[in-house]
């Protein structure tokens, strides 16, 4: 392809950090124009992310030594298949969230804070995905935490503030554990570079302790059962664009980091029982999140508990990582599919909530009948969460079951399929009120964009149903460590 | 001979410093009295910068004294003051609420 040959010389990765950061700074300096900077940034970032994905797809992983100082002295940016896919997913969902926020928040005072913090969050996530240095990852992680905590607290009120506080403490505990792991790794090998560490790590006390600390610390942050308590109030009570950003994107950050570490730094380590323990927690999360989603009475709470359940799937990573060669790719595809679908569901829920003035599920029927586009978005994206066909969720579920069966891990396949059933139960519960008798009602007037964005994202989940092959091809261009 | 004495003196100092640090940390985290905890934390920061000097990190010692102990301490103190004021305000409001 001539375009990839042309792209080969262009340095793209830093721009994916620079552009959103510049947007965030401008939005902070001129708060009154924040939303237009936000929109411009979102568009530019999406274009850059697409170009980066094409570049990586065309010529393989790109490793960039910053300031001309190559590791271990300097810091490297790593744009490989995994990183560029996450950046692309973030950009796609991010653009949708930005467009939606234009209608949802407009130019309100709260909206200005949203724009600024959201762009910071975006820049931080991109920086994290592209970083190739364990200490630099710590700094980006803290950026992500501060931005997302502030976003959670933006809703005000006792519950969101308490949720934000809990989230902050849990995250800091996680970051500290992670940092201790970094220190142990540096102490043992004298380098902070992911690739350099990957080439050296062997089975001994310090790296094992580091692996445990880093993994557990990041698990705490990613709200895996039973450490999920902060998530439903935080995601359920935030403004809709924030909920979408948190549930669709931020949850994936610590998952990504865990995956990155185990792919690049610790592939040579085997901690006996870790896969069973993690798989067990994952299964418990799937079960508990699903059951709670069936019991709570507010629309956004249902969606938030659905995130608890779906985070469980992400950590089926551990049983699959060592047993099945393509297992981690299945999980990453799941993460992407979930990101898009969950953003669509949260944004649709936000539209219904704004139209009805509340989000009590039992009383939403009229608005759901009145706002068909949004109900459809809810339905289609819900189908993706369940893993029904022609959606990204189906492909993800297929890949997960395939990896589990390939490795003869029947139990985990049953967990995936059973979790899909629970998801089916709560998604159809969400849709139920639309079918109650009675006339439709459009509720309060809302900007049209708040109906079109969720629908577009929902249609994107269908497009993802056909994106399995290119996504896997991109993921195949991921750097993995280890002597083997 | 004198080298050995220096060595043992320094080691003794290290042990003493480390034990003090651990003791201060323990006391401040026990949290009997918040104000005392905060003051102990500032002291902890200053002791820490002493430890950084012993670990041949003067830059870090400077940063710790200025930021870790100084600025963080000031932030903690002002936060504690605000916390106290919120408490008395809530207390007064509670009293006022009870009267009628």
């Amino acid at each position, binding site marked *: 392809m001539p375009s990839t040959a042309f792209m080969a010389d262009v340095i793209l990765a830093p721009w994916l950090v620079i552009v959103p950061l510049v947007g965030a700074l401008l939005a902070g300096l001129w708060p009154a124009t924040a939303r237009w900077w936000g929109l411009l940034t979102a568009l530019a970032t999406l274009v850059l992310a697409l170009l980066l994905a094409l570049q990586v797809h065309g010529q393989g992983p790109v490793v960039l030594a910053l300031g001309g100082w190559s590791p271990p002295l300097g810091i490297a940016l790593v744009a490989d298949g995994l990183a560029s896919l996450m950046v692309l997913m973030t950009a796609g969902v991010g653009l949708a969230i930005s467009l939606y926020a234009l209608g949802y928040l407009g130019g309100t005072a709260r909206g200005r804070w949203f724009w600024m913090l959201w762009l910071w969050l975006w820049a931080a996530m991109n920086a994290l995905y592209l970083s190739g240095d364990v200490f630099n990852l710590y700094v980006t992680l803290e950026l992500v935490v501060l931005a997302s905590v502030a976003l959670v*607290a933006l809703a005000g009120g*006792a519950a969101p503030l*308490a949720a934000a506080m809990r989230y902050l403490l849990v995250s800091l505990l996680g970051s500290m554990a992670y940092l201790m792991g970094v*220190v142990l790794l*540096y102490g043992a090998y004298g380098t902070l570079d992911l690739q350099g560490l990957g080439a050296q790590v062997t089975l001994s006390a310090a790296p094992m302790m580091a692996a445990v600390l880093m993994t557990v610390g990041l698990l705490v942050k990613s709200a895996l059962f039973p450490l999920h308590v902060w998530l439903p109030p935080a995601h359920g009570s935030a403004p809709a664009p924030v909920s979408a950003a948190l549930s669709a994107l931020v949850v994936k950050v610590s998952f990504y980091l865990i995956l990155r570490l185990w792919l690049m730094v610790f592939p040579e380590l085997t901690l006996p029982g870790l896969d069973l323990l993690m798989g067990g927690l994952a299964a418990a999360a799937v079960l508990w999140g699903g059951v709670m989603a069936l019991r709570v009475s507010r629309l956004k709470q249902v969606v938030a508990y659905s995130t608890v359940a779906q985070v469980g799937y992400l950590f089926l990573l551990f049983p699959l990582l060592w047993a099945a060669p393509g297992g981690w790719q299945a999980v990453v595809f799941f993460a992407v599919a979930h990101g898009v679908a969950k953003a669509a569901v949260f944004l649709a829920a936000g539209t219904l909530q704004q139209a009805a003035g509340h989000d009590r599920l039992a009383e939403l029927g009229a608005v759901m009948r009145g706002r068909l586009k949004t109900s459809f978005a809810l339905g289609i994206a819900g189908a993706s969460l369940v893993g029904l066909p022609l959606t990204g969720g189906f492909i993800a579920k297929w890949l997960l079951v395939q990896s589990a069966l390939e490795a003869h891990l029947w139990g985990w396949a049953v967990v995936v399929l059973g979790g899909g059933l629970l998801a089916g139960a709560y998604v159809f519960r969400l849709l139920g009120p639309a079918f109650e008798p009675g006339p439709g009602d459009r509720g309060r007037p809302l900007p049209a964009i708040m109906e079109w964005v969720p629908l577009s994202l929902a249609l994107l989940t269908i497009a993802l149903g056909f994106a399995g092959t290119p996504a896997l091809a991109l993921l195949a261009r991921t750097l993995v460590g280890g002597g083997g | 001979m004198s080298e050995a004495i220096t060595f043992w003196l320094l080691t003794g100092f290290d042990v003493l410093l480390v034990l003090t640090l651990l003791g201060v940390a323990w006391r401040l985290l026990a949290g009997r009295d918040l104000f005392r905890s905060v003051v102990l*934390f500032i002291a902890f920061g200053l002791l820490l910068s002493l430890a950084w000097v012993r*670990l*041949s*990190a003067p830059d870090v010692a400077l940063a710790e004294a200025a*930021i870790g102990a100084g600025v963080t301490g000031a932030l903690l103190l002002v936060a504690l003051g605000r916390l106290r004021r919120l408490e008395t305000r809530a207390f007064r409001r509670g009293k006022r609420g009870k009267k009628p």
Partner: protein
Amino acid sequence: MATDPVNLQIYLACGALLFVMGVHALVVRRHLLLKILAINIMGSGIFMVLLGVAAGGEGGVDPVPHALVITGIVVALSATAVALVLMLRVKAATGLARLPRSGPED
């Protein structure tokens, strides 16, 4: 001021213990201010291990950990500042400077 390896072991162990004390207090203590202090103690423990590592090399003192610790101190300060203000907001909204007990952690 070249430090002897024996002394370093003391500091390394002290760092590890400070870290664990922080973790313990973070989980056990309920007042938010104490939790925030606990996180700072954890950080100090980590920095101590890192600086101990830096001082232990044969080829002189390693400056990279010093830079990392300075960065770490600033990051810890930032997090502490946000946490303290958030604590005050929680206090103002709920009347309590502690988290409502709703789950097994914290």
